[in-house]
């Protein structure tokens, strides 16, 4: 035991010597939470609108005023020719153009049909469709105001209740994602690099001839990263509660328990990588690119996995972070108990066991 502890201390010294890396490891969660919390949003604000109004009557003026009064929309230019829109889009000066037809008011009152064209820059499909949605709603509201004298014979009013996240804050979705990403980064990436480094430098041989069993050497290597990960989870949770106002609705103990399980999975992935590659460069590239990028993109952290084509959705099932993120969302945001995350916990347990068996087997094979 004493030997083991001195091994762990050695590893701690090893890591603490490189101050810059430690600073980055502790800083990444803070920067991510701040960026995701404040800067990264798909909400569409500051919409720049161009208007072409050949009719210039009281109805179109009323509609334009109503559009301009909206807090998200600024009418930036009133254009004289519909052809000017193209160049406004190309120069990136407008996001949407509203084009009224001739004699708008007359058409509206007499034939009951007056038309408006909404032209948006469709380069970014998401922004474009949210934008047209906004403007359509405002036009509908304007129409209702103009039509007060007509009573609509039928109406069904939907009452909308947003469960768990009434403010529709993005933070509820990405905090669990950031947790998954950071644990993966520290446990899988750092562990694999630090083991391969010993191999590359030849110091692994020295360790292996010591009276310690190889398994303890590996465990001793993993412990400092486990401690670092715990500090990071605490940082993330504190920031999310006190800075982003995302409360932890469920059991904190359960949350930590699941996180430890995920840390175990990530550590075994790191161990597995270290048995496959020979050099530090390869370890870094394998964990940094081959592992991290799919984790970011296929875990449901940014992009919903159920939208993906069937084959790709199948691939997402083997990404451990996906199951961890689902767990964290259920416990932290929805406040559900252990029975609701049984499936996810089971999957993570199976992954941990399988990875551990494979990597220990490979690790032992290489020693002979």
């Amino acid at each position, binding site marked *: 035991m004493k030997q083991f502890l001195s091994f762990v201390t050695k590893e701690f010294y090893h890591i603490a010597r490189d101050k810059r890396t430690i600073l980055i490891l502790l800083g990444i969660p803070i920067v991510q939470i701040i960026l995701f919390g404040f800067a990264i949003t798909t909400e569409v604000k500051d919409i720049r609108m161009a208007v072409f109004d050949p009719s210039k009557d009281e109805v179109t003026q009323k509609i334009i005023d109503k559009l301009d009064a909206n807090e998200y929309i600024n009418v930036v230019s009133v254009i004289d020719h519909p052809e000017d829109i193209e160049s406004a889009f190309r120069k990136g000066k407008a996001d949407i153009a509203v084009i009224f037809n001739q004699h708008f008011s007359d058409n509206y009152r007499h034939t009951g049909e007056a038309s408006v064209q909404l032209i948006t820059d469709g380069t970014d499909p*998401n922004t474009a469709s949210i934008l047209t949605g906004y403007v359509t709603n405002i036009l509908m509201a304007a129409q209702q105001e103009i039509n007060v004298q007509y009573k609509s014979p039928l109406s069904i009013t939907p009452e909308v209740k*947003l469960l768990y996240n009434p403010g*529709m804050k993005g933070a509820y979705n990405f905090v669990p994602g950031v947790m998954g990403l950071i644990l993966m980064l520290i446990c899988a990436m750092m562990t694999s*690099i630090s083991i391969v480094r010993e191999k590359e430098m030849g110091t692994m041989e020295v360790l292996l001839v010591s009276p310690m069993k190889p398994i303890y050497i590996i465990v001793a290597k993993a412990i400092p990263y486990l401690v670092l990960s715990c500090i990071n989870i605490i940082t993330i949770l504190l920031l999310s509660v006190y800075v982003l106002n995302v409360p932890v609705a469920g059991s904190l103990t359960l949350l930590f328990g699941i996180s430890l399980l995920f840390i175990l999975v990530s550590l075994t992935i790191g161990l597995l990588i270290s048995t496959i590659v020979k050099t530090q460069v390869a370890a870094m590239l394998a964990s940094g690119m081959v592992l991290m990028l799919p984790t970011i993109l296929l875990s449901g952290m940014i992009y919903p996995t159920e939208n993906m084509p069937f084959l790709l959705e199948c691939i997402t099932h083997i990404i451990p972070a996906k199951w961890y993120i689902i767990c964290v969302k259920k416990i932290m945001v929805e406040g559900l108990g252990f029975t609701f995350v049984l499936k996810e916990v089971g999957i993570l347990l199976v992954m941990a066991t399988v990875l551990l068996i494979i990597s220990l087997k490979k690790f032992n094979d290489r020693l002979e």
Partner: protein
Amino acid sequence: MIKYLIEKEFKQIFRNSFIPRLIIAYPIFMMLILPWAADLEIKNINLYIVDNNHSQYSRQLTQKAAASDYFRLTDVSSSYDEAIKSVERGDADIIMEIPANFEQDLIKSGNTKLLISANAVNGTKGGLGSSYLSSMITDFTADIKDKWIQPQKKEAITPSIKIETQYRFNPHLDYKAFMIPALMVMLLTILCGFLPALNIVGEKEKGTIEQINVTPVKKFTFIIAKIIPYWIIGFMVITICFGLAALVYGLMPIGHLSTIYLIVLLYVLTISGFGLVISNYSDTMQQAMFVMWFFVLILMLLSGLFTPINSMPHWAQIITDFNPLKYFVQVMRAVYLKGSGIMDLIPQISALMIFMVLINSWAVVSYRKKS
């Protein structure tokens, strides 16, 4: 002199069997997978209907919802508790509750209510899902107006605004067309940024840098020789990307390919130079890797690649002005989708040129022959 140095760099890159394979396989793999994954469109929303009314109208509404492209009907029951359990299990995303007196109210007073409860853990999904559902309900109201209300009532026409919507540059709102040019930026950043970042510090760790330091090689020549291989690698990577975008996704740039190659030239030099700067300041490869990771993460998130820059707060928008990735993403999307030419892109091109000169000068200055 420089010829031999470049030859040496290539030998070093190709001696490690992992790197050449990565340079070819990574872009192919990513181009085949990422465009399918990076999709923010919301579809296939799982809908649970709680029908407390069991009337002709409520069944009609259920059918209409089931027929919609946006929704997948998971279950219909008359228990809200069952529905909530289904949401908690993750089987349903949104609940539509039809109240017990739905049809009666509609016939008697012409007004009735519907309750929508959406799981908003993912705020965008919850919000969009409930607004799709609301607009489906509006359609349904129009349907019954047309079909079931007696013709004489229809005579008092309510005037309405006819809205026509047009999407320029990407009429079918194809998310892949939007993401693929930007994903190429990401690939180039990763490959041509990380590899140089590990380069000089790698030589430091191995000790081979000492041998260079005792030769009369100038700092400038040394850095140029380090950068040129990545430049060639960058061209290879982008060509693979073009090929795959055209073959697999049928996506060709509307603008000229030469415009893109010009920008790629500037950008690869910038990002590789940045990698070398980090390499110069690092003591170990591990350190270089993490410092690079830290910066690339921030640069990518603040580049407009994933989320629009317009919706960022003012302070973040100012930061993006100093981000070379932002300009490269803008150029790629403009050339691919809008067909912009060099003249349209002068602000972006000049910004990248300034970055290239500044960063590479820094790489030369920060490289110390004596430790």
